[in-house]
């Protein structure tokens, strides 16, 4: 039985790398005494996979892991409670859903994600209105062709296609819904970097605090939150 859990990673846990998050869950699952499926063979380990690594320094309210269970510990609510009792306050399980048997794992269906950006203390623009006006102009262009550095070289992409939605939020914050995953992947910091470059300004990677808020798969060209692939139990 595969259960998909959604969790947050906040505060000082933004400095814990992806591998350490995986290790953290292995121990958390043991502490919660969950009845999990272990791989066969010499050194058995839990069958668990994560939707997408979160970059160091980012926080999130929308992380996902798929975990294979032998038996379920009561209801979704009970599972969430049991896990949170043995977790640190800065990493909390938000939701748990049971996936259909043939469900693909979160990593392979991942198509999009939501992010909220806020200016880090000391990095706020002097003229916020001017800033957002310029951003609006930039993002309203017909196409936004940019060149991205990849592991193998460079790649020409159109930001316009990869940004599915964006808006200004109260408190000079920003919301982005972007492509994420193996087919098309865009990081919100990269949008801002391209924008600063278009203004001829240098982009300091510390400018924004970034919080991931949700991750999606895609059905019929519509983004579906990863939790909606299963049902609460």
């Amino acid at each position, binding site marked *: 039985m595969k259960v998909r859990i959604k969790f947050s990673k906040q505060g*000082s846990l933004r*400095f814990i790398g992806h591998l*350490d998050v995986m290790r953290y869950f292995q121990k958390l699952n043991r*502490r919660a005494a969950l009845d999990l499926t272990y791989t066969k063979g*010499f050194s058995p380990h839990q069958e668990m996979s994560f939707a997408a690594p979160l970059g160091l*320094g980012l926080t999130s309210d929308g992380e996902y892991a798929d975990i294979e269970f032998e038996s379920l510990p009561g209801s979704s609510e009970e599972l969430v409670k049991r896990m949170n009792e043995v977790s*640190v306050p800065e990493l909390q399980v938000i939701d748990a859903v049971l996936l259909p048997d043939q469900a693909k794992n979160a990593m392979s269906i991942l198509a999009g994600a939501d992010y909220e950006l806020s200016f880090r203390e000391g990095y706020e623009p002097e003229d916020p209105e001017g800033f957002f006006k310029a951003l609006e102009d930039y993002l309203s262009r017909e196409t936004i062709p940019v060149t991205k550095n990849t592991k193998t070289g460079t790649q020409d992409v159109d930001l316009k296609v990869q940004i599915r939605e964006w808006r200004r939020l109260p408190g000079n914050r920003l919301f982005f819904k972007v492509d994420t995953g193996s087919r098309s992947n865009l990081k919100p910091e990269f949008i801002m970097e391209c924008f600063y470059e278009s203004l001829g300004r240098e982009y300091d990677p*510390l400018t924004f605090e970034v919080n991931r808020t949700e991750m999606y798969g895609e059905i019929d060209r519509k983004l579906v939150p990863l939790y909606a692939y299963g049902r609460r139990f």
Partner: protein
Amino acid sequence: MRKLALSDEILLSIDKPSRYTGGEYNSYNKPWDSVTLHAAFCFPDVYEIATANLGMQIIYEQFNRRPDALCDRVYSPWLDLDKIMRERKIPLFAVESQQKVRDFDLLLITLQYEMCYTNVLGILDLSGIPLHASDRTEEDPIVIGGGTCTYNPEPMADFFDVFYMGESETQYDRVMDILIAAKNNGQRRITTLEQLAEVPGLYVPQFYEARYHEDGTLASFTPVNPHGKTRIRKEIVADMSADLPYPKHPIVPFTRGMMDRATLEVMRGCIRGCRFCQAGMIYRPVRNRSLEFLKKTAVEMLESSGYEEINLSSLSTSDYSEFAELLDFLLPYCEEHKINIGIPSLRIDAFSLDVMDKIQDIKKTSLTFAPEAGSQRLRDVINKGLTEEEILEGARQAFTGGWNKVKLYFMLGQPLETEEDVKAIPVLADKIARVYYETVPKEQRQGKVSIQSSTSFFVTKPFTPFQWAPMCREEEFTEKAMLVKETFREQLNRKSLVYHYHAENQTELEGLFARGDRRVGRAIEEAYRRGCIYDAWGEYLKYDVWLEVLNDLGLSFEFYNFRERPIDELFPWDFIDIGVTKEFLAREWQRAKEGKVTPNCREQCSGCGARCFGGGVCFEGQN
């Protein structure tokens, strides 16, 4: 949300930022204002090494279980952050509260190996605490040292207000009471130090004066403050079944540390007085933890931490009286819960091979022997109660049981070692290989047998029968290692034999710190000022700088390391009473010279003096 001491800009620019952000599962994180006494415990090395230390976890528990105190943790910032903190004058902080170290009432620093001494100065310096205890003010925390190296605290005497000699469980509650009362009364620092000096096991170095003879040896060592005791007896827990603090809910680091597992301490001390071994003497007598405690604690630790491995720790776990019963419990439990058991320091015999067979399951990793010396003669000199027959028989059983990799550990440069003893190392390795070819029929051999031998260089330690003995010079060490290497080439099974040795110039410095006196402290300070830090990390040891400093200060290895010390010489550490008497050690030194073996504590008591603590092996079978 906790406010961090370092900015995101810094944290994102350094390696493994989570070393500095705390918040680990099972950490106490007590609110700063909820207690009177704020203690910070420091292991002066990088986080991953430090978190493995059991002593630290015990003290952490001992302090935090009190409602009126908290204990936070401090580690050495790695070189990348060290540099930033110095450049920007950022004060060192503790990881949980993220408060400045200098704001604590008490700073406990554990000295687990000599090569961490410059790191200790780094900790004080980065914290803004004067290096010299005598320069500290009412605003500075009281700095207490503990751990293995405090059995000769003298090289570090100037930098500590207090040393705690021995096991933490017995007196720290009293220390806390004194400090809390002092804080409530606004008492002066000197009064507090005088009160602490009267607590058993506590040593306040500035209350003592050392005088030297013209030849440099110690003439006298006496208290100059009436509160200083003439002799400081180490503290030990005589009854290990008492309700002692233990990390039953151990902190689980986020990053993978040296010890990604729960540590179950089965006993303290060791019954076997190997003559080179300091631990074997200073932790006497052997005291078992009760089987019931171990069973209960093992389960509680594993359940509360989620660790996938448990380590049975002690100096010589095979000697634990109820070892078989403990394993009868642990093996099925761990199998059911998919937990690995680690048992370092097993003696190789039929029983332990059987145990290893069970815990190693399918994959047979290599088997470790520590004969320490190649020849039987030298093994008798060092009192390693292990005969060649036992080694070969152990190997034979292991090979029959399916192992084909053996690791052997030896020490080079032990006192009274001859060329023959050195050459005996490869010969012993070869004999073991021969045993393989004799015992395992051709058709059952899975590849070649592999015998790996490594040698380390011997460092003379205080409170051992060898404390009078000279150490080898660097050239001698190298010659010996070369001789071993050559002799390996002459062996019949040389293709199955591998030899490693570490050419470490650490050894001489370690010797200097181990048996040094107060004057060595000046060298440590000067070396630190000239940029030495992380000396324990071979690649960062600035050996040339050290040599320059010693030269400039007129300190020599000749005096501290290379001479044989007369039997009646007053040693800098003689004011410490470890229970084991100097007479016993001298007797053992004599027996070493005669090549006589001394039985272990369970075979026969040799009257070492440790009986005075009123517990442990000395009283076994007497009630």
